[in-house]
């Protein structure tokens, strides 16, 4: 920052001085030292900025407006603001709060909404996907087969295409891996971005090998390998000799350009030539295609040529036997594509996040608007206070431009201080807010308070100053000397002007819309929290682990026994499944004849302790014995919904289910559970023995503790770490926290909109308080006269309160109309409720009325305590 304000060597020496001083202070208190450093840097920068500005204005001062001059105006404005500390601090606080929140949100959503993609000529990049004309909107699917990609590339030779596939892992040690994606040899040419270090060679795309060449992201290079300069060539393998050879590092902030890869890969692997069976089977869809179109090529003409190619692939499609259990949609999507679509890459990448980003940005902009309206109202009131002084200046020869400049300088000072303070606060809060962001949100940019955010702050500040100056000028449009000098402080008529009503009503309308957004999303989150997950939450923990590639059943049992012997543990289970991680894999069990239509029934492979750990009791039949589930007998437990749908009107116990040709007996029925997330209704579960899987593994442990156990989870984690050093503990948390994480997006939305709604109420409350207090102060004499003529204190207070009714009522009416339209955009984020939920609407309106009436009541009570004798002596 200092480099912008002075020469580089001086800026560096100042920064060095401040850093040395900070380190000295940090020995006493690190956080106080950081605070001191921020404050001092800001103070020095502000001093330089103001001095430079004043110096430049003095040098360029045109002869025509010498009245006072910029420098004198600035001094005058500073003196004048010092005399009105409440006004200055209120305005600075409102601008700082609005800017801090808005800049934080802008820093997060900038990549999705405004920033161009970081690929070369990104407008020429398209995402190629197949679809089915018989489905609504020709529903496009993300992935294509290699037969499709080959045919597409041959049909449009002038278009460069790259094929990739996401969702794999590459091992880097016995119990650690990196999320990875396979890319073909054209990938870097198509996106037009090349690795920062190294890269793939032609040989890397050869036959498959145990050690795979990998290009890691810059962030992985820094965080996992400490930015080691000798990273290229490092070989990272597990005990079985499988792993990765690092051949390159991606540039900083590189965004993987496939929508399927929203949980971004940490490494790119060279896509090896697959077997002929995979290459030639048009029904195996697992690859994503991006294309770089030549300039001036027609998208529709390329699409139609690709459609012809897709039809040729369709003719090679194997005839699959009609599966009566598959839905009509599924039968179509198992068939060949008859539509091919080209969609701009940017649209595809931002589509899942766009609505969320747009909604967040809209509330941020709303808060900025509210801040500006608020400032305009306060500044207009202040201009009225200064009417006498400004009219005198006018009478002494001050031109319109001179007076306007005088007002603008004061506004520039408060807005600049507020904006700088807001940006500084945003720098501190951004990392906290980013940590709350749900996993899997593709932002296309690492959130940071950078030059783009500073520019956003500047634009907002300039807009606020312009609006405020114009508005306060409106309040000053009559400048006849005699009436102003003749009157004392009486500006009663003007305080009730329609302009003031409009200004206050607009603030209330915007605040209502924002408060309502917060109320709706918070109510929605509360509804989710009130859902019963179906399993025991208290005193139960989930531990996500990575086991070595070879970890046989005996070792798994040994691990479960070790956990079971930790003091305080009353049950432990192993799952080869995601649990509360928003994952739904479905079931491979065949539906019995006569089964009713069901949703996505989930098959969970678990150990025998699962039912005790989850607190599930048999509602029919019995639970499995240890021998049945841990040694592998062909028995299953089903949940209520499965029992009711598969064997309608009769008992499920004693019936059998077939999976991959093997028959399993149903021995018991348990309650349905929300295994994917708290906000996803169960469609029914089938629990099968983990030991019966072809390759049983442990992905999660479910551990239930004694009710009296105090903070028992660390003991389990320590036991695992000491006794099983080759098992990596990825995450250990109590189920209450895991349930919270499972609705992370809802939690973030409710938090974001709740904070903005609260900030809007605070801003509107402070603004109204300031505006009414200033208006009441101007009317001291009038109040004195009224009281001298017999008005009571309560009568005066009631008068002031009554005067606030028109803006409050019209503001709430306008806000309700505005909100009625805006809440429509929130409906897809609401859980089992409508956007017109009366509870949320009533509470938002009630809180707003309470805030506005409190803001009006404080100055009203103050006015009612005016001593008429003193009041009549004013002026």
């Amino acid at each position, binding site marked *: 920052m200092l480099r912008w304000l*002075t020469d580089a*060597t*001086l800026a*560096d*020496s*100042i*920064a*060095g*001085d401040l*850093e*040395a*001083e900070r*380190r000295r202070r940090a020995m006493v208190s690190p956080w106080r030292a950081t605070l001191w450093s921020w404050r*001092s840097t800001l*103070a*020095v*920068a*502000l*001093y*330089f900025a103001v*001095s430079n500005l004043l110096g430049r204005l003095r040098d360029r001062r045109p002869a025509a407006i010498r009245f006072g001059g910029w420098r004198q105006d600035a001094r005058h404005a500073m003196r004048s603001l010092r005399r009105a500390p409440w006004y200055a601090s209120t305005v600075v606080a409102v601008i700082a709060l609005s800017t801090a929140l808005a800049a934080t949100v802008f820093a997060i959503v900038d990549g999705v909404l405004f920033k161009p993609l970081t690929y070369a000529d990104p407008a020429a990049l398209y995402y190629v996907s197949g679809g089915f004309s018989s489905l609504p909107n020709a529903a496009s699917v993300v992935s294509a087969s290699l037969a499709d990609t080959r045919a597409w590339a041959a049909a449009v030779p002038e278009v460069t295409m790259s094929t990739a596939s996401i969702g794999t892992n590459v091992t880097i040690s016995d119990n650690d891996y990196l999320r990875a994606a396979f890319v073909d040899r054209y990938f870097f040419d198509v996106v037009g971005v090349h690795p920062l270090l190294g890269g793939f060679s032609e040989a890397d795309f050869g036959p498959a090998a145990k050690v795979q060449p990998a290009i890691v992201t810059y962030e992985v290079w820094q965080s996992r390998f400490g930015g080691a300069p000798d990273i290229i060539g490092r070989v990272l393998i597990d005990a079985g000799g499988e792993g990765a050879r690092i051949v390159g590092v991606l540039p900083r902030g590189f965004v993987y350009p496939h929508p399927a890869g929203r949980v971004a890969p940490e490494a790119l692997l060279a896509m090896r030539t697959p077997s002929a069976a995979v290459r030639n089977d048009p029904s195996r869809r697992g690859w994503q295609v991006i294309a770089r179109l030549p300039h001036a090529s027609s998208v529709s003409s390329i699409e139609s040529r690709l459609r012809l190619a897709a039809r040729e692939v369709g003719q090679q499609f194997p005839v699959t036997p009609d599966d009566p259990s598959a839905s009509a949609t599924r039968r179509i999507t198992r068939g060949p594509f008859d539509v091919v679509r080209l969609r701009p890459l940017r649209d595809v990448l931002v589509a899942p996040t766009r609505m969320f980003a747009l909604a967040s940005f809209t509330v941020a902009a709303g808060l900025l608007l509210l801040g500006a309206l608020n400032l305009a109202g306060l500044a207009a009131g202040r201009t009225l206070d200064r009417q006498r002084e400004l009219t005198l200046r006018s009478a002494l020869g001050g031109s319109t431009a001179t007076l306007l400049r005088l007002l603008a300088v004061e506004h520039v000072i408060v807005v600049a201080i507020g904006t700088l303070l807001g940006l500084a606060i945003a720098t501190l809060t951004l990392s906290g807010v980013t940590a709350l962001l749900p996993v899997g949100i593709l932002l296309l940019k690492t959130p940071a308070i950078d030059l783009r955010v500073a520019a956003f702050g500047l634009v907002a500040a300039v807009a606020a100053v312009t609006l405020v100056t114009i508005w306060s000028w409106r309040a000053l449009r009559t400048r006849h000397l005699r009436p102003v000098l003749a009157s004392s402080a009486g500006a009663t008529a003007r305080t009730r002007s329609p302009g003031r009503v409009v200004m206050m009503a607009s603030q209330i309308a915007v605040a209502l819309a924002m408060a309502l957004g917060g109320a709706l999303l918070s109510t929605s989150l509360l509804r989710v929290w009130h859902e019963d997950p179906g399993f025991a939450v208290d005193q139960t923990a989930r531990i996500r682990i990575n086991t070595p590639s070879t970890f046989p059943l005996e070792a798994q049992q040994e691990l479960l026994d070790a956990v079971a012997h930790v003091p305080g543990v009353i049950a432990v289970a192993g799952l080869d499944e995601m649990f509360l991680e928003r994952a739904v894999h479905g079931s491979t069990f065949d539906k019995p004849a006569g089964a009713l239509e069901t949703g996505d029934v989930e098959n969970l492979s678990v150990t025998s302790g699962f039912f005790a750990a989850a607190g599930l009791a048999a509602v029919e039949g019995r639970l499995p014995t240890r021998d049945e589930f841990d040694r592998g007998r062909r028995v299953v437990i089903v949940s209520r919904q499965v029992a009711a749908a598969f064997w309608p009107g009769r008992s499920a116990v004693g019936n059998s289910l077939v999976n991959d040709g093997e028959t399993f007996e149903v021995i018991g029925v348990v309650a349905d559970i929300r295994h994917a997330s708290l906000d996803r209704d169960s469609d029914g579960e089938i629990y099968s023995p983990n030991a019966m899987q072809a390759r049983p593994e442990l992905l999660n442990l479910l551990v239930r503790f004694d009710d009296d156990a105090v903070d028992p989870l660390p003991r389990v984690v320590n036991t695992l770490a000491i006794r099983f050093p080759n098992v990596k503990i990825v995450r250990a948390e109590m189920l209450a926290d895991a349930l919270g994480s499972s609705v992370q997006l809802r939690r973030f939305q409710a938090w974001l909109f709740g904070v903005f709604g609260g900030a809007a109420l605070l801003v509107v409350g402070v603004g109204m308080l300031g505006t009414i207090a200033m208006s009441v102060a101007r009317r001291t004499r009038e109040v004195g006269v009224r009281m001298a003529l017999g008005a009571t204190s309560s009568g005066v207070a009631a008068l002031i309160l009554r005067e606030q009714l028109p803006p409050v009522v019209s503001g709430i009416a306008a806000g309700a109309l505005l909100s009625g339209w805006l809440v429509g955009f929130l409906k897809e984020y609401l859980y089992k409720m409508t956007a017109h939920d009366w509870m949320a609407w009533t509470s938002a309106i009630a809180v707003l009325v309470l805030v506005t009436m409190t803001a009006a009541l404080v100055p009203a009570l103050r006015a009612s305590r005016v001593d008429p004798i003193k009041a009549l002596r004013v002026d």
Partner: protein
Amino acid sequence: MPQDVPPLGEFEQMVLLAVLCAEKDGEAYGITVFDELTARTKRGVARGAVYMTLDRLEKKGLLSSYQTEPTAERGGRAKRCYQVTKPAMAALRESRRALLNLWEGLGAKSGI
């Protein structure tokens, strides 16, 4: 006052004297000059004002500066140390002489 000695403002005089004090104890740079000023004058001084004045005095030729080697405790940045130039010494002497003459003119019974 000689023609080639520029007139000094009150704060400029204080900064020049603080540089001399700091030089006496070691190196005169931003932090030490600021510390000397605040400790000896018992006044609240804006850090930015000290840096700005040091820079202005250097441009006026009343201070000269040199840079030290960058160090780790300064975040890899160099230190800018200042020295008072001959014209500045002359200006300070002139200012002191003028002030002493004025005080002497008041005599012992001034009551101040």
